[in-house]
C-alpha cells in the first residue's frame, strides 16, 4: 500500500511552468485573433497576472468559493458502486454539489472578479449545455452586471430548462442560428460581440480554450478542484489516487482536476471524450481520441476536427456540453507527451452509466460527467480493490432529465 511517497525526479516536472510568455503550450495555444481583440487580451493578461499573486484578490476568490459556491466539495466514496464493479474503489469529486450545479462556477466567479476589477459593466458568455451560461448569469446577477449569453439554437431546444434559468437570473439568452447551431457557433458569435463591444464588455469564456490568457486563467480558477481532491485523497485513503478520470469537451473540469496532479508521475489520468455514435462512425466529438489533425480555431492552435479542406467538422454527442470540435491546447500537449490517456465513451455507454449511478448511489450525474463514469466502469474492474480512482462528477443531471425522458418516450 503506497504511503505518501515523494518522487524526487518527475518526468513531467516542467508542465506547471506552462504556458510560455506568449501563451503557448509547446506547439499549441497562442493568440490567433483578429487584431481588434489583441489589445483587450493584452489588457486581460496584465490584469490577471497582477492579481494572480495578490493576497487580497485570492482571499476574495477563496471567500466566494467557500461562502457562495459551498466549497470544498466532498470527495465521496461510491462504495456500493465500487463493490458492484468489483475492482478499485471509486471516489466521486462532487462538483455537482456546487451552487449552480457544476464546476463551471469556479471559473465564472474568478472571471467575474476580473471583470469587476477591469470596471466593465457588461459580461458575455457562450454556452453549450447551459451550465456555463447559468454560472455566468448567476455571478452577473450577484455583481449587478449586464449579461448576454450566446447559445446555439439547437442547444436552446435541447436545454430548455437552463435557458429558462438564465432568463430568470436576468440574462439575455441569444440563440445562434449560424453554422451547426451548437457550442462552436455560440463561441463565434460571442467573439463577434466582443470585437464590437470590447470597450465595455468582458468575455467570460467557459473552457480552457480560446486565445491566451484564457486557457491559463480558466485552468487556474478550476484547479481548486484538483487541489482539494489531492488533499482529500490523503485524508480519505492516505495516498495519492491511482487514477483520475474526467470528461473532456473543451476540457475545463478535467484540467481543474488533473493540473494539481500533473507532476505526480504515478497518478494515471484518463480524459474521456464524447464518442457520440462511436468514434469509428465519424459521428462524435472526440478530437483527441479519434486522431484529428492540428488546427486553429477560436484563438488557439490545438487538435481540431476538420475536413481535408480545413472546414471545421460537425460534431455529435448526446451531451451539449461536450459537443465541440476542438479541445483546450494544454490537453493537446498532454496527449503528445503521453501524460494523459484520452479515450472516448459513446452515447449508449453514457446513458447506461447515467442510469447506473442514479440507481446505485442515488446521485444523478450530468450527461457530460456520465462520460467519465462510463470509463470508470471499464477501468475499475481492471484494478485491485485496494486501489483508488477519483472521478470528477463535474455536474448534476437535473438539466438532462428531459433528454433522458424523451429517449424513454416520455413527454411532459
Amino acid at each position: 500500500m503506497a504511503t505518501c511517497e515523494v518522487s524526487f525526479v518527475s518526468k513531467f516536472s516542467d508542465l506547471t511552468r506552462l504556458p510560455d510568455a506568449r501563451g503557448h503550450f509547446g506547439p499549441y495555444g497562442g493568440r490567433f485573433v483578429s487584431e481588434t481583440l489583441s489589445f483587450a487580451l493584452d489588457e486581460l493578461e496584465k490584469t490577471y497576472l497582477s492579481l494572480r499573486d495578490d493576497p487580497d484578490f485570492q482571499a476574495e476568490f477563496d471567500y466566494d468559493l467557500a461562502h457562495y459556491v459551498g466549497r470544498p466539495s466532498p470527495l465521496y466514496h461510491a462504495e456500493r458502486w465500487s463493490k458492484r464493479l468489483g475492482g478499485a474503489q471509486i471516489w466521486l469529486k462532487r462538483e455537482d454539489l456546487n451552487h449552480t450545479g457544476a464546476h463551471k462556477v469556479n471559473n465564472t466567479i474568478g472571471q467575474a472578479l476580473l471583470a469587476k476589477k477591469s470596471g466593465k459593466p457588461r459580461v458575455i458568455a457562450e454556452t453549450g449545455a447551459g451550465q456555463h451560461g447559468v454560472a455566468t448569469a448567476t455571478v452577473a446577477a450577484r455583481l449587478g452586471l449586464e449579461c448576454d449569453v450566446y447559445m446555439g439554437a439547437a442547444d436552446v431546444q435541447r436545454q430548455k430548462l437552463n435557458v429558462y434559468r438564465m432568463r430568470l437570473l436576468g440574462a439575455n439568452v441569444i440563440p445562434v442560428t449560424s453554422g451547426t447551431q451548437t457550442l462552436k457557433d455560440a463561441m463565434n458569435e460571442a467573439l463577434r460581440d466582443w470585437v464590437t463591444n470590447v470597450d465595455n464588455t468582458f468575455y467570460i469564456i467557459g473552457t480552457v480554450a480560446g486565445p491566451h490568457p484564457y486557457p491559463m486563467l480558466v485552468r487556474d480558477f478550476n484547479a481548486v478542484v484538483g487541489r482539494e481532491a489531492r488533499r482529500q485523497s490523503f485524508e480519505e485513503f492516505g495516498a495519492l489516487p491511482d487514477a483520475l478520470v474526467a470528461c473532456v469537451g473543451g476540457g475545463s473540469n478535467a484540467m481543474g482536476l488533473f493540473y494539481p496532479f500533473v507532476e505526480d508521475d504515478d497518478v494515471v489520468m484518463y480524459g474521456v471524450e464524447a464518442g457520440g455514435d462511436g468514434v469509428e462512425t465519424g459521428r462524435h466529438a472526440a478530437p483527441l481520441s479519434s486522431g484529428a489533425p492540428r488546427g486553429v480555431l477560436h484563438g488557439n492552435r490545438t487538435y481540431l476536427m476538420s475536413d481535408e479542406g480545413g472546414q471545421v467538422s460537425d460534431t455529435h454527442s448526446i451531451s451539449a456540453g461536450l459537443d465541440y470540435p476542438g479541445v483546450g491546447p494544454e490537453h493537446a500537449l498532454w496527449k503528445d507527451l503521453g501524460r494523459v490517456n484520452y479515450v472516448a465513451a459513446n452515447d449508449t455507454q453514457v446513458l447506461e452509466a447515467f442510469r447506473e449511478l442514479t440507481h446505485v448511489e442515488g446521485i444523478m450525474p450530468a450527461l457530460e460527467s456520465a462520460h467519465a463514469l462510463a470509463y470508470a466502469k471499464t477501468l475499475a474492474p481492471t484494478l485491485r480493490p485496494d486501489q483508488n480512482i477519483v472521478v470528477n462528477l463535474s455536474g448534476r443531471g437535473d438539466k438532462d432529465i428531459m433528454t433522458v425522458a424523451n429517449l424513454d418516450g416520455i413527454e411532459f
Partner: protein
Amino acid sequence: MTAQTMNRIDQCFANLKSQGRRALIPFITAGDPGPEYTVGFMHALVEAGADVLELGVPFSDPMADGPVIQKACERALKRGVRLSHLFEMVHEFRQTDTDTPVVLMGYLNPMERIGLEAFTEQAAAAGIDGVLAVDMPPEEAEELGPLLESRGLASIFLVAPTTSEERAATICAHGQGYLYYVSLKGVTGTATLDAADVSAHLAPLRGMTDLPLCVGFGIRDGASAAEVGKVADGVIVGSALVSRIAANTETPEAIPGELKAVLGEMRQALDALSD
C-alpha cells in the same frame, strides 16, 4: 521590410503614387454563389476600376465577419469550394490578367490543413501576390511569414482602432504590401465608419511606415469611399459588393453588372480626389 523583387502589389502602389491616385480594393468570397462565376467577377471588378483584388477563402467559422460574408462563405461551402479551387480560379484569371495583384484573405485553418509549405507553394504557382490571414497577428506568423517571403508573397496584416502604438510598430515592421486598417470595432459589414476617427488613427502610422495605408470595414458607397480616400492610400470594400451577389444568386448573370455599378461609383469618387 527585406529587399525582394518588386511584386505586383508594390508595383501597383508605386504606379498609383506616381499618378496621385488612391487604390480601390474590392473583396469577394471565392466560389460565391458558385465556383464557375468567380473569375468572371474578378475581371468585371478590374474593368470597373479595381487596383488590387482581395479574394476571400470560404471558412466554416468566419469569426471576424458579419452576416453578409458569413452567408457568402456558406454559399461557397455548399458548393464544395476549397483552397484548391481558389488556386485554380486565380490561375485562370492570370491567363488574361497578368498585372492586377490578387491577395488571398481568410482564416488560418484551411491554410494550415493543407500544410503551410504546400499552401505557399501552390499560392505562388497560381499567381497570388499576398496573403492576409485574419486570425494570425504578426506574433503568430513565425512559420507562415518566412515561407511567404521566400516565394515573394506579401504578408499583409491588420491594424485596428484598439492597436497600441507599440503593437502598431511591430505590425509595421512585419507588414508587407499594404497595411489594412480596420476602420471600426466590430465585424465586417455592420456599421458606418467615422472618417475623422480614421484620420486620427492613420496619422501616427505614417510616421512608422512607408507601407501604403488602406482602410476597410464600413465603406458602402462613393461618398464613404471618398471620405476615406482623403486620408488613406486605398479603400477596401467587401460587404457592399457581397450583398449585391447575395441579392442576385438566382440571376448570377446580372452580378457582374451589379458589382461594376457599386465599384464604378467608388472609382469615380476616388478619382475626383486625385491630386
